[in-house]
């Protein structure tokens, strides 16, 4: 069946939309393969605007890996802005890939990467524009398998009705495995149709097929049981873990967009996973254990990535980059290599206690000494014990004092509001901390020309964390505390003008909370919001709290029940049948420890505390040091 490019139809619409370049593809290192030479075809979607989706590492890695496979092709698709959506509807232009502008419905698999739940409505737009039935049960043999991955897929229940399948954890190996299952099934002449393909995927235990599970409820609304509804389907579905990152040195051919995107840099993941044990952090819990990429692979990836892309910035990514066992040698080695080449290095996530000034000096050697960012997350010592973010006030003051005296003028501090057990005093503690930071900085530099910016995010309890049982703070409480904090900062005559304050109101967190810990009954709300025009919920100019609340009311969904209600130990949670490897009893104990302020150490440096991941998943911590160094690059 020939599949034609829809570009000629799209092209006529592009002069009428904002930033048309985002829809035309043609990025450096993008791939267009012969349709007929492939027997398995993936459309990969990041369900947000191109400028956010293009730099996404997950999609970029899978795009490359799948296109490297023989007889397999992968193309990318992104959410179109409402201006183009309206024109596409008027002209009957379907959701398309940016690589060869093929209609998404023609692919075998539509893989969506959900970093956040706020992309759910954009998925519905894409399905609808593609002409793919919105509900999985309405799809036929000619429709793609709609497959979700990414962190939000660890609880895909709110979108279960729209998905054919979901995958938990690292995508590299399972994407290849799924490709082979699809290839085999197609080669056999698609026996048993769509259902058999889904069955083959489900039987492996590595792919979750929601429709093969029934959910029963108690009369009070709690879940009674989630159980397979046909033989051969496993009771639990497990996450995937790539164990040797040096074997998967992607991206090798980084996509370089023409359009401006949110991250204009070449990113290398220097390790995956984190065992610091911050209790609010879903990423840290679901990506265990820590697996480092070696210093030599990092060096080779950076060298190749810069050559292939022409980017002037290199980002060393991970959940806490200064924790890499050889970060000092990585930093020094890279700074030496790129001295005088106008290449800058960045370390996006740095803990106060892992930070040292030598490291910061290496990272700013070839670039600007603009600002440093730390995330104490909690404003008081007590709060930080509850969330197990073991950063003391002394650590923070010592670190910022050194930074200011070494020439940095700006420090950014991230905090959360609405944490479990939080009081007004905990939040006001943020103001005290910020004032002490400025005071220390002024004393260290003898100058008043230093600044500190305080950024506050609303806390949302997430599945597979110790706080999965916690009641979320209602938005009135969060807003009241944020206002009190603002007044305390603004009202201070001595320090107020040196402290910047950034925050959002508490309402979006409630919607995020509903989608994070929701069950299958929340799907009706998502659909109603979409039907009411809901799009791009991660963008404040498009997000409407009122739209979500009125949709929930119409669907008979009690938002408070899903968000501010605390759960009991024995309640069946919507994601209990999805296995991130974490032992449920350990999580509960950690929740109890949180309430009493008991801390847990990092298992990289202290004995195992039995979170359960390694034995369940057959994995282990992989860290250096390797003892190797980065050699200078040979000049070509």
């Amino acid at each position, binding site marked *: 069946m020939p599949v034609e490019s829809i570009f*000629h139809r799209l092209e006529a619409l592009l002069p009428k939309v904002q930033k048309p370049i985002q829809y035309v593809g*043609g990025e450096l290192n993008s791939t267009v393969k012969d349709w007929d030479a492939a027997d398995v075809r993936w459309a990969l979607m990041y369900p947000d605007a191109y400028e956010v989706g293009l730099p996404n590492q997950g999609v970029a890695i899978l795009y490359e890996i799948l296109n490297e496979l023989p007889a397999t092709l992968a193309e990318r698709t992104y959410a179109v802005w409402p201006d183009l959506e309206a024109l596409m509807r008027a002209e009957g232009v379907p959701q398309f890939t940016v690589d060869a502008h093929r209609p998404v419905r023609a692919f075998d698999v539509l893989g969506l990467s959900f970093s956040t739940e706020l992309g759910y409505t954009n998925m519905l737009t894409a399905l609808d524009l593609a002409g793919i039935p919105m509900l999985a049960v309405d799809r036929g043999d000619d429709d793609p398998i709609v497959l979700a991955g990414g962190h939000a897929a660890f609880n895909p229940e709110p979108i279960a009705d729209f998905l054919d399948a979901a995958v938990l954890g690292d995508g590299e190996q399972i994407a290849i495995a799924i490709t082979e299952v699809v290839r085999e099934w197609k080669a056999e002449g698609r026996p048993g149709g769509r259902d058999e393909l889904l069955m083959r995927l489900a039987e492996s235990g590595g792919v979750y097929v929601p429709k093969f599970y029934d959910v029963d409820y108690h009369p009070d609304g709690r879940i009674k049981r989630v159980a397979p509804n046909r033989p051969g389907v496993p009771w639990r579905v497990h996450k995937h873990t790539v164990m040797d990152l040096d074997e998967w040195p992607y991206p090798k051919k980084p996509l370089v967009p023409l359009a*401006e995107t949110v991250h204009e840099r070449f990113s290398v993941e220097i390790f995956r996973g984190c065992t610091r044990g911050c209790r609010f952090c879903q990423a840290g819990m679901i990506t265990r254990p820590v697996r480092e990429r070696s210093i030599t692979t990092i060096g080779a990836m950076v060298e190749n990535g810069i050559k292939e892309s022409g980017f002037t910035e290199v980002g060393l990514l991970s959940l806490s980059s200064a924790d890499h066992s050889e970060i000092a040698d990585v930093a020094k080695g890279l700074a030496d290599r790129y001295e005088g080449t106008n290449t800058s290095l960045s370390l996006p996530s740095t803990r106060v206690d892992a930070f040292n000034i030598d490291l910061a000096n290496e990272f700013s050697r070839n670039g600007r000494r603009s600002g440093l960012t730390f995330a104490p997350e909690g404003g008081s010592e007590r709060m930080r014990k509850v969330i197990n973010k073991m950063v003391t006030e002394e650590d923070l003051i010592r670190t910022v004092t050194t930074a200011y005296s070494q020439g940095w003028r700006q420090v950014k501090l991230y905090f959360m509001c609405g944490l479990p057990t939080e009081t007004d005093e905990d939040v006001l503690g943020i103001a005290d901390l910020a004032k002490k930071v400025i005071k220390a900085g002024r004393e260290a530099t003898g100058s008043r020309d230093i600044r500190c910016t305080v950024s506050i995010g609303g806390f949302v309890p997430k599945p597979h964390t110790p706080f999965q049982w916690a009641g979320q703070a209602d938005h009135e409480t969060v807003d009241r505390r944020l206002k009190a904090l603002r007044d305390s900062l603004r009202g201070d005559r001595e320090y107020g003008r040196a402290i910047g304050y950034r925050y959002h109101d508490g309402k979006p967190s409630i919607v995020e909370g509903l989608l994070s810990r929701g069950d299958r009954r929340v799907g009706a709300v998502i659909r109603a919001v979409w039907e009411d025009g809901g799009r791009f919920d991660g963008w404040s100019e498009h997000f409407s709290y009122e739209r979500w609340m009125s949709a929930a009311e119409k669907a008979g969904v009690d938002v408070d029940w899903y968000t501010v209600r605390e759960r009991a130990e024995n309640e069946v949670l919507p994601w209990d049948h999805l296995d991130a490897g974490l032992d449920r009893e350990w999580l509960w104990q950690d929740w109890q420890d949180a309430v009493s302020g008991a801390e847990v150490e990092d298992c990289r440096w202290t004995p195992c505390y039995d979170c359960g991941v390694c034995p369940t998943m057959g994995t282990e911590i992989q860290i250096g040091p390797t003892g190797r160094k980065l050699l200078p690059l040979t000049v070509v």
Partner: protein
Amino acid sequence: MQRLRVRYAKRGRLRFTSHRDISRAVERAVRRAGIPVAYSAGFSPHPKISYAGAAPTGVASEAEYLELGVTTPCDPERVRADLDGSLPPGLDVLDVVEAGPGGLADRLEASEWEVRLPGADPGLAGAAVEKFLAAGAVEVERLTKKGPRRFDAREAVLRLAVAGTPPEGTDRTAAQVPGRSCVILRMVVRHMTPAVRPDDVLTGLRLVADFAPPVPPEVTRLAQGPLDASTGALADPFGLDRETTRGGDPGQASEQVAG
């Protein structure tokens, strides 16, 4: 520091790049190609690349120009090939010369444009062009960043004619439907302040003769350069550079200018 002058095209789907998109793409391509571009001094060094009068987003061009400072002398033809190889297809480097005396921007006195109007009626187009040329002034309004602005679109237009319909099978773009007519306008427009763009001329045609094409026009800049006042033709803006430096052959690119 050697200065190189570059003529490049933006073609096909890459006509939707904005000026900022192109400048990012060129900076990266220069680095990938290993061209020893000079950087400005100071706290935040920038590569020394300057652009002369970029065509608007959505408009294709065979004649865009930039100037590049390099720290060690380079062979212009080698730079042409390397830079072209490092830019995505559709941003194509056509010609590179070593800069001679005088500024490049000053030599870009006028542009020649081609405007394709799929589905438009050739007879109506011809009549509208006649009326436009006969008018002493045609006031048009365009929405700028500073709000609506009124100016004369007639004076800057040195030549304007219906070039005819394209032969079968040469359709470059999409909006064309086989069997439907496509009017092609050719115009030479002097660079003035405020700039008169092809869409302003189209606005003028609508105002004087109620001529309105059914779909958005496809616009291509064919050439820019010094104006021969007597003939209204454009000369090669690199002509002076070629005479005074070792800069290479005019090549295929400047033949297109002459045509």
